[in-house]
């Protein structure tokens, strides 16, 4: 096959197969570094903050949150949608890019999938605790029960969400674990201590790299990718149904599903970039997660950012064009009301800022991309805040108009889930290979 020399190599620095193992496993087999311990300690402190916030929420009650009439959904659902959105890059990268045969995914899919799983765990905390009595959370499952054949309401988009998120979580976990098995076997066979040999041996399920197993493995991976692709799209579609099927002005729009999915991919890639730009630097993986990878990801960010921006403008136009005064007011209130600062932060971060990626310099300069990825994260958080809080704080009855301010418990909860997310990520970096070694070895001489 002819491969144009003009294409950059996927793995740079003339690496051999053994180099891949040595480079990637350095963080797993080596000693804990100071940087790792420092980062883990800070994340852990924030995780403890989350534990406190949840303890406070459960023992005192939801009154510790700033939710009020009419803003029943505020901080918690904002953060829920924020985290679910972040969870969308992982499966997108490993599933959709696999179907499109994009080989550059192989260096980043492992960490992105890990991120997906941690983000969905963070997301799940919010609706679970918003229920008030978290120990009864299993009531959302369609279980035969002793309360007189009361079943869950399958007409409710909130229940669809339960199914969508739990399916997404478990299928992503399976996909991630399946990809990990060959690499866990590699660690097992290199392990020096008995404990790690036993633990990695347990999770490697006797993997020996037989070609017959690889054959089946690739079929399974392809089918999982095939079914995960509509799954990714369905999950955020269903999250958007939570809003779109209601009769709240500003929520009741048909543009929500594609707009939410594009936003989810946008924010997911933002978080992937935030983490990977640091990880590739600290773990010396710049030969594997190259500038070309960053370039490709920033292009996705620019595309999805523009799609989200188009959706903002479209819904604004349609609201005015609809002639429905409530819709018109809801959108005018977003842009000019008491939360206008949040609206314009969103507009700037999601629509305007990513346009800088039209320039090659900005797509190939890691520190700049890092800053931009933070901007994207902030912008997407504010998008959810704008959609939820500004739509709710002024309803049909002006006498019940209120403002919303988060309480300390809510802020602690959000910072705490950040802590949970990063604690999980630090543990992942320490105990599992951050790059899919088996896949990268198979493309070691390939070009883009």
């Amino acid at each position: 096959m002819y491969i144009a020399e003009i294409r950059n190599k996927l793995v740079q620095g003339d690496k051999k197969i053994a180099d891949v193992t040595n480079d990637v496993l350095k963080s797993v087999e080596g000693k804990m570094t100071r940087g790792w311990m420092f980062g883990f300690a800070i994340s852990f402190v924030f995780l403890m903050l989350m534990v406190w916030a949840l303890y406070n929420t459960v023992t005192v009650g939801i009154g510790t949150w700033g939710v009020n009439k009419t803003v029943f959904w505020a901080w918690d659902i904002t953060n829920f949608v924020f985290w679910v959105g972040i969870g969308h890059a992982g499966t997108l990268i490993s599933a959709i890019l696999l179907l499109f045969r994009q080989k550059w995914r192989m260096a980043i899919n492992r960490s992105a999938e890990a991120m997906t799983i941690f983000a969905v765990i963070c997301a799940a905390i919010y609706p679970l605790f918003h229920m008030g009595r978290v120990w009864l959370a299993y009531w959302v499952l369609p279980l035969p029960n002793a309360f007189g054949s009361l079943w869950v309401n399958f007409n409710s988009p909130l229940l669809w969400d339960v199914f969508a998120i739990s399916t997404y979580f478990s299928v992503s976990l399976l996909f991630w674990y399946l990809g990990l098995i060959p690499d866990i076997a590699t660690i097992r066979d290199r392990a020096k201590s008995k404990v790690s040999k036993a633990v990695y041996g347990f999770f490697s399920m006797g993997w020996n790299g037989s070609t017959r197993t690889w054959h089946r493995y690739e079929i399974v991976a392809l089918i999982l990718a095939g079914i995960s692709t509509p799954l990714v799209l369905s999950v955020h579609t269903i999250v958007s149904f939570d809003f779109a099927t209601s009769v709240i002005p500003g929520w009741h729009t048909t543009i929500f599903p594609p707009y939410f999915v594009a936003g989810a991919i946008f924010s997911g890639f933002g978080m992937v970039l935030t983490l990977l730009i640091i990880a590739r630097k600290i773990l010396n993986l710049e030969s594997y997660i190259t500038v070309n990878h960053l370039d490709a990801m920033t292009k996705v960010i620019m595309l999805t950012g523009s799609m989200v921006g188009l959706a903002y403008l479209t819904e604004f136009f349609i609201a005015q064009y609809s002639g429905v005064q409530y819709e018109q007011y809801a959108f005018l209130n977003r842009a000019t009301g008491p939360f206008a600062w949040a609206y314009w932060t969103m507009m700037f971060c999601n629509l305007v800022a990513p346009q800088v990626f039209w320039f090659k310099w900005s797509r190939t300069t890691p520190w700049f991309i890092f800053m931009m990825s933070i901007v994207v994260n902030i912008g997407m958080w504010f998008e959810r805040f704008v959609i939820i809080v500004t739509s709710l704080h002024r309803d049909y009855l002006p006498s019940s108009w209120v403002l919303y301010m988060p309480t300390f418990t809510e802020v602690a909860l959000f910072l705490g889930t950040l802590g949970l997310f990063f604690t999980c990520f630090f543990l992942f970096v320490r105990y599992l290979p951050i790059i899919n070694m088996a896949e990268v070895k198979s493309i070691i001489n390939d070009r883009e």
Partner: protein
Amino acid sequence: MAAKNILKKNLLIGIFDDGDKLYDAVVNLRERGVEVFDCYTPYPVHNLDRAMGVKRSRLVFGAFVCGLVGFLCGITLQLYTMTDTFGTFKSWPMIIGGKPIDWRVIPSFVPVTFELTILFTAFGMGILFFARSRMVHGIEEDLIDIRQTDDRLVLAIEPDKLSMTKEELETIVKNQGALDFYERNLNNTDENK
């Protein structure tokens, strides 16, 4: 099938350090009528399975059946609990928000049915894959070379099914770029390593 009792087998082993060389060796050997027992590689070598003559796995059919089961479970559960479609086979469907309890609510069953189809497909196929590959947590791995999951590729051939002498085979395999070639004879373990 990759028998899991390969530890008990006498095998002729060729060790490679490159997937392309191993692939060429397998193609060459198959042309000469030598059946390859199995190859053990740290990464999936493109088309090696076809070169070895591995039959296409039927896992896809299993996946389809699992998906179908998921679909039927999802739709039946919802029709049973939310509607009176099946006559007396119903479980107290309730009118919530003025929505009907007959076939007209079927569109709102799409998301849950879809998710359950995917859930059953993924886990059904995962379980079938592990079962078919005899993979289970805690099973002892059967390695020929400790580096076969790292940077060495192993070619394994059964000596008793050989159509040529071992020396001929060794020449061919070494000419294809094998780093090492030996017979793993379990009756005399000293020769192995």
